């Protein structure tokens, strides 16, 4: 049974306006916030330029084959994830359901991250930027204590934005400003996905191309900042010794996997709107390469700015020391400069060691400041915002930066929502006469209501949980079953014939080898290593507690048992769909075989292919 030649040309399925729209949608889905705030961080902590070696190996043996598989599957079967896997075999329908569940969970929390970006965006129109100054305390004698002990940027993020509680068990109340921003974000998502790909196809021209423009502007600006070259040298200097650490290979494999947004079902949905005679092989290679190049391109301005921030912090440290020395010894101003600081210090240390010791000078080391690496929300909302304050014209830079983050996240949201929307449309949840706008409206409304729990004071801890458990392990499991399902159940011979029919040329040996052996093996190894690493220590989190002794350092806490149960549930729910659906069909089969009016199973799958 092959699903290809009988497909009618005009089946009323929406289609892309042109090929470019489709490629841009796939690229927009793949290129997301992780390209900006996770890849540069991994590059930095895993030996700079040396990290590119495991990264490209993972791209070659894991990223591109899986991407090609998903695109070919969607294009060939012309259905969303649930329908496509049901067509291959009803027993494998669970893979589609698992993808759908993951898309739902990820959409919920991803849009809340965009809420934070929007909040910062609308706050960037003020002069001075609200995260640059500490508010005064009640009697106006000094600054707010929490702000003074940490920094103004930290205070704005943890107190003014999140209003975070010291513990995940304390939920606190809903934060009204976050609710407003969340409603706006879901309204934007609804606006863009209101009629499925008809509207996202138009919106993607802006949201996929705009980030590249802003990255280029930041690149030019970043390279002119003092200290940018230090940051870049630090980022790209290869340290081949790190390759001996298996953690590096694991991080490279997981980064490629999550960066390409595989196993969400969104790529299958996008490809299903293509005409069947389309070169999916070239598309897959193009999207994967563009995604990796974007990661590299984005890391240059990020690290220029981080180098600038480290240099400024180093100069501030030096200046503070210089001022204390000048004040203590009553030396004339500008006698000690940053350049002759070390010679002065050695001279003074030899002549007046007690006085120098009494000053309690901090040791200023540029390397130390460069080493302070952060990834994720910390990079965008703490480190980068601090660097933006130091640039001239900070409002403009802040506005540009947050619009860029918003577009990056929005184009990924399109893919997520498409992964939810297309299967529901095919399952005929709402009657055919009802407009598509209604379904997308219902999806956005329900998601908004559920996502309200992320606007609680402990919301950011919950988002970390969703990110770590719902958006990681299930994807590996689903991708593994995808490859196994296509390679060994649908059978590679049949699939290669379908792909040949679509692309017009014979399938390369490379695809045969990777689909059959290398990718499943690699996925299995990555999954085992990932789970083992997670199990090594009890799941913990870092909490922002102003009453902690080590404040402003974050307090390390262990999750309470009910939270741990939720973590396990989040990770297990999508994975468990795969065997559950297979079991359900098996039971249905057994019951049918006991039924006197027995219909053979081949008829069922044949009917599935034609519906």
């Amino acid at each position, binding site marked *: 049974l092959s699903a290809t030649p009988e497909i009618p040309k005009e089946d009323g399925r929406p289609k892309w306006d042109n090929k470019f729209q489709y490629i841009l949608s796939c690229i927009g889905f793949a290129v997301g916030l992780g390209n900006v705030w996770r890849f540069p961080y991994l590059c930095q902590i895993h030996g700079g330029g040396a990290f590119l070696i495991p990264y490209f190996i993972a791209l070659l043996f894991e990223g591109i084959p899986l991407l090609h598989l998903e695109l070919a599957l969607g294009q060939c079967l012309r259905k969303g994830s649930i329908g496509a896997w049901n067509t291959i075999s009803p027993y494998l329908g669970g893979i589609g359901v698992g993808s759908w569940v993951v898309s739902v969970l990820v959409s919920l929390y991803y849009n809340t991250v965009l809420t934070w970006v929007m909040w910062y965006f*609308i706050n960037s129109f003020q002069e001075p930027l609200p995260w640059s100054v500490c508010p005064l305390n009640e009697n106006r004698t000094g600054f707010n204590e929490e702000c003074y002990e940490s920094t103004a940027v930290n205070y704005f993020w943890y107190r003014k934005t999140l209003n975070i509680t010291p513990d995940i068990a304390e939920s606190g109340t809903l934060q009204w400003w976050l609710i407003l921003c969340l409603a*706006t974000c879901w309204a934007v998502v609804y606006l863009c996905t209101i009629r499925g790909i008809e509207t996202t196809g138009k919106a993607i021209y802006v949201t996929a191309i705009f980030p590249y423009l802003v990255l280029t502007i930041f690149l030019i600006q970043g390279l002119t900042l003092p200290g940018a070259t230090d940051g870049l040298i630090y980022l790209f200097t290869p340290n081949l010794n790190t390759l001996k650490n298996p953690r590096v290979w694991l991080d490279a494999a997981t980064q490629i996997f999550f960066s390409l947004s595989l196993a969400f079902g969104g790529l299958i949905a996008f490809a299903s709107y293509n005409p069947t005679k389309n070169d999916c092989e070239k598309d897959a290679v193009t999207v994967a390469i563009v995604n990796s190049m974007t990661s590299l391109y984005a890391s240059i301005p990020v690290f220029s700015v981080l180098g600038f921030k480290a240099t400024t912090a180093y100069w501030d440290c030096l200046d503070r020391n210089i001022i204390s020395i000048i004040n203590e010894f009553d030396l004339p101003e500008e006698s000690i400069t940053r350049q002759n600081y070390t010679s002065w210090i050695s001279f003074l240390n030899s002549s007046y060691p007690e006085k120098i010791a009494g000053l309690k000078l901090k040791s200023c080391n540029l390397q130390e400041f460069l080493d302070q690496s952060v990834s994720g929300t910390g990079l965008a909302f703490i480190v980068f915002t601090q660097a933006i304050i130091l640039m001239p014209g900070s409002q403009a830079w802040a506005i540009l930066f947050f619009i860029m983050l918003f577009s990056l996240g929005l184009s990924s949201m399109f893919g997520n929502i498409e992964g939810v929307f297309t299967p529901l449309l095919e399952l005929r949840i709402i009657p055919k006469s009802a407009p598509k706008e209604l379904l997308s409206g219902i999806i956005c409304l329900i998601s908004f209501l559920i996502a309200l729990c992320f606007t609680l004071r402990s919301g950011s801890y919950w988002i970390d949980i969703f990110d770590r458990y719902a958006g990681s392990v299930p994807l590996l499991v689903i991708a593994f079953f995808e490859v196994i399902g296509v390679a060994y159940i649908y059978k590679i011979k049949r699939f290669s014939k379908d792909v040949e029919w679509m692309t017009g040329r014979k399938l390369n040996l490379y695809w045969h080898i990777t689909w059959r052996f290398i990718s499943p093996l690699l996925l299995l190894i990555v999954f085992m290593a990932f789970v083992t690493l997670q199990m090594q220590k009890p799941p913990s989190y870092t909490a922002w507690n102003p009453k902690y002794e080590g404040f402003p350092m974050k307090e390390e806490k262990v999750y309470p048992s009910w939270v741990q149960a939720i973590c396990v549930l989040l990770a297990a729910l999508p994975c468990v769909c795969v065997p559950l659906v297979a079991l359900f069909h098996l039971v249905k089969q057994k019951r049918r075989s006991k039924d006197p009016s027995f219909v053979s199973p081949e008829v069922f799958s044949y009917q599935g292919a034609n519906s």
Partner: protein
Amino acid sequence: MLRALLLTLSVVAIVHAELCKPDAQNAFKVRISIKTALGDNAYAWDANEEYLFKAMVAFAMRRYSSKSTTQISNVLLCNVTDRVSFWFVVTDSSKNVTTVPGSEVEAAIRMNRNRINSAFLLSDKTLQFLKITSTLSPPVEPSTPVWLIVFGVVLCLIVAGIVFLIVSGIQKHKKKNKESTERENLEEKVEVTLENGIPCEALDLKTGRINGVFAADDERFTSL
């Protein structure tokens, strides 16, 4: 005569040295950072500037206590360093060789801090009175927070977009429905005459029509 003068001067000097020294009672340390404040336009700290400083402190004391007894000579400066930093003390000319209490001096300086700063083109940070803290000015807060305004604009745009798309979708739907009903009506008008299920227009009346039932079997006809 000369000896008496020398004696008085030395007594005065000793008394001054007694009153004004680092960490003396009611003495304050001042630290000035001219280069930091003015950069290239920095002026040098010399005796004239010291004279101005004494004048400003005397002015502050006069304004605060509203008695015009404080003279410039009442303000004593000592231990001027290259930094520039020095100690000063205000003596009370009415009482014998005593200094004005520190609290009064502090209050006077605080009241006139702005005037003193502007006389030297400096600020609170660059003209520091080490024991006198300055009250911080609150940040300027507009009546409506700016972010609410921006938020309102963004939300209006988005809602307008959604309404436009929904309305255009409904209009398209209505137009499609109207078109399809019109097409159905048109097709009904066309199929008016039907003969044996075949519309009359399809029948080409010139050439005639072979009835397949009778023409099917050639063997029925006898061959000639």
